[in-house]
């Protein structure tokens, strides 16, 4: 007797927990707004790394400038893309 009771209780609890988002609310479009991916940290990491290479003499000034500008340009491009997706440009 105890097993069916335990099983029923678990099944009911799980079903309520899972179906709750579908029971109460109206149908609404999913929030498809993508958060900014962790590019900021990644770009900062890459720039920090580049600075270290340059300051220890592993990169020429010309390559350093070019790579640094490229990283910043890519970061800016990603941010613009992110802003377009979030509608940030109009706000």
């Amino acid at each position, binding site marked *: 007797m105890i097993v069916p009771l335990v099983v029923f209780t*678990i099944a009911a609890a*799980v079903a309520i927990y899972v179906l709750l*988002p*579908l029971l109460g609310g109206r149908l609404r479009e999913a929030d498809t707004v993508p958060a900014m991916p962790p590019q900021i940290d990644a770009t900062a990491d890459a720039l920090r790394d580049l600075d270290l290479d340059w*300051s220890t003499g*592993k990169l020429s000034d010309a390559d350093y400038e070019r790579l640094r500008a490229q990283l910043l340009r890519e970061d800016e491009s990603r941010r613009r893309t992110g802003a377009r997706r979030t509608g940030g440009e109009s706000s």
Partner: protein
Amino acid sequence: VLGEVGRFALQAAIPMAVFGLIATACGMRWRHAGLLAAGQRAADAWAALIALAAGMLMAGLLTRDFSIRFVAAASESTQSLFYTAAAFWGGHDGALLLWAVILAGYIVAATRRFRGHPALLPGVTATLFVVAIFFSVLLSTASNPFTPLTPPPPDGRGLNPLLRNPWMAAHPPMLYLGFVGMSVPFALAVAALLARRLDDAWIVLARRWVLVAWTFLTIGLLFGAKWSYVVLGWGGYWAWDPVENAAFMPWLTATAFLHSIQIQERRGMLASWNVALILLTFGLTIFGTFLVRSGILSSVHAFANAPAIGYQFLGFLAVLLIGGFGLLAWRWEDLRAAGSPDVAERIDSVISRETAYLANNLFFVAGVVVVFLGTIFPALTEAFSGVRVNVGPTYFNRAMAPIAIGILLLMGIGPLLPWRRATPEQLSRNFAWPASVGVLAALVIGAAGLRDPGALLVFALAAFVLATIALEVWRGAAVRRRRGEAPPAALLGLLSNNRRRFGGYIVHFGILLMLVGIAGSSEYATQFVGTVRQGERFQAGAYALEFLGFSEAQQPGIDITGAVVRVWAGGRPIATLVPQRFFYRAQGQPMHQVAIRSTVREDLYLILSEWTADGRATLRALIHPLVSWLWSGGVVIALGVLWAAWPARRASPQPASDPAPKAAVPIDSVAGG
């Protein structure tokens, strides 16, 4: 009750995972927030059901509920509490449940971690649900650990004695944390392909997950090697056994991935390659499980011979690979376009860090091909000719040695090369000192009498790589010292502000230790055998081994015979070792308990081979130089990963010395964003 609740939980897990997949897929298709939320909750519920099943099985083991077939097969009343709990993964069905438990943990962690990334989250969740469905079905049908046993026997058969060792108790959880951990980056790659988010955002997210899984895999491999070393009594730690190889292959591809993503992050190249590597890595973890479960290859580790289950894994592997690589082909043009628009997919110079990383990837992939072919060769020959032909360790050692040496060389070269191109001046400035150290090391080691060319090359290259790491630290710290920082602060600041790079160097140092340990122990191992009576000695290299007599002991279910041996060196006693032979009464199975005296220089490894009624003991003594370096390397690697993965401070970094050139934009503009 335990069995019934466990069975229910596993059966309920199937519809829950199916519902989660459908809800998530429909939520993605119709952009329906309620369905997506229900899918997320289904992930939690699936995890809870698997946890409930796991709890029931653990309770069954601890209460010795022999009405559950698995409990009766993997435990017995005299078994210690520790090994009774470890018996959870000591048998096929329980091991699969452990896989599901770990998957449940990763699903819960991933669905929470990626909540801030709604473009990728549904794809990740749906992909993980596909994996969850497979394991739920398997656990509810062919591999159900709650299959009842009627009538229950008075006692169980007990855990396989070979598995009653702390290293083996810890080996499967570590390995599975690595194997299953690869499912999250796999799911991220699939999600990125589905959502057409093919810039490097997904690899930035995946990197830490791969790093964590890679670390567990490394530790799992080392625990397995340690178990082999201390339990199997053959004196080695790696035999190129199919099951070892199965775990080694995803390690190789994951290592390649951890390097190649840097090219994508820095230069916008190899986007497709990185997706392929991670698909392959997870595919290889499933392939490895197929090898272990199917019984198509003989192995000391394979504890199941169930072709039907093996072929289910093979079918699942086919679904994963066809689905994954099909998606990759579908998005091929998007991936090509995902590279930075102003960076053509080309290498500016052969002498650049990009080239070093590319070569590194080629070596790792070559390693996978070598190991894969050698592993499946017996099955292939049997399929085509009816005769099983094993290639043996000689093939693996000969084929892998140049690959390992190539990787070792690149470990030194890569970090010293700049991105894009290196000038001759940079090369001479960067390599003169480390190359000199390598040559000097070769000369000194050669003069000391070590002449084996392979080992000599490994030691010299290790010295070269160590010198490159030291040079990197020295130069970086020197830049900070010039800014007025005290030496300790300069060092700490350098390591803390560049965690990823210097964490990587710490990992490289750990790999160095391991390679030196492998080279030393495999090339310079010596063996001595002596049959002695009480009070007699025999010489084993620099050691004299004096047999003091037998020791007898009993533990529940085990008879123990040991040989007490006093170890002499330089005319004085330095240790007493007791190699033992355990005899498990219920299983009728003997097992070695070797005795090891381990130092930085070498291991003295003692085995009680046999003994006679008239009091003679035959002892086998093996001397393995530098084995402890192998295990120390594992600890260093774990510390390196911890350092690299530790969250960095969000403070804006500044150029380490002079101000940036005029054209450079201050880094604050990004970091502060």
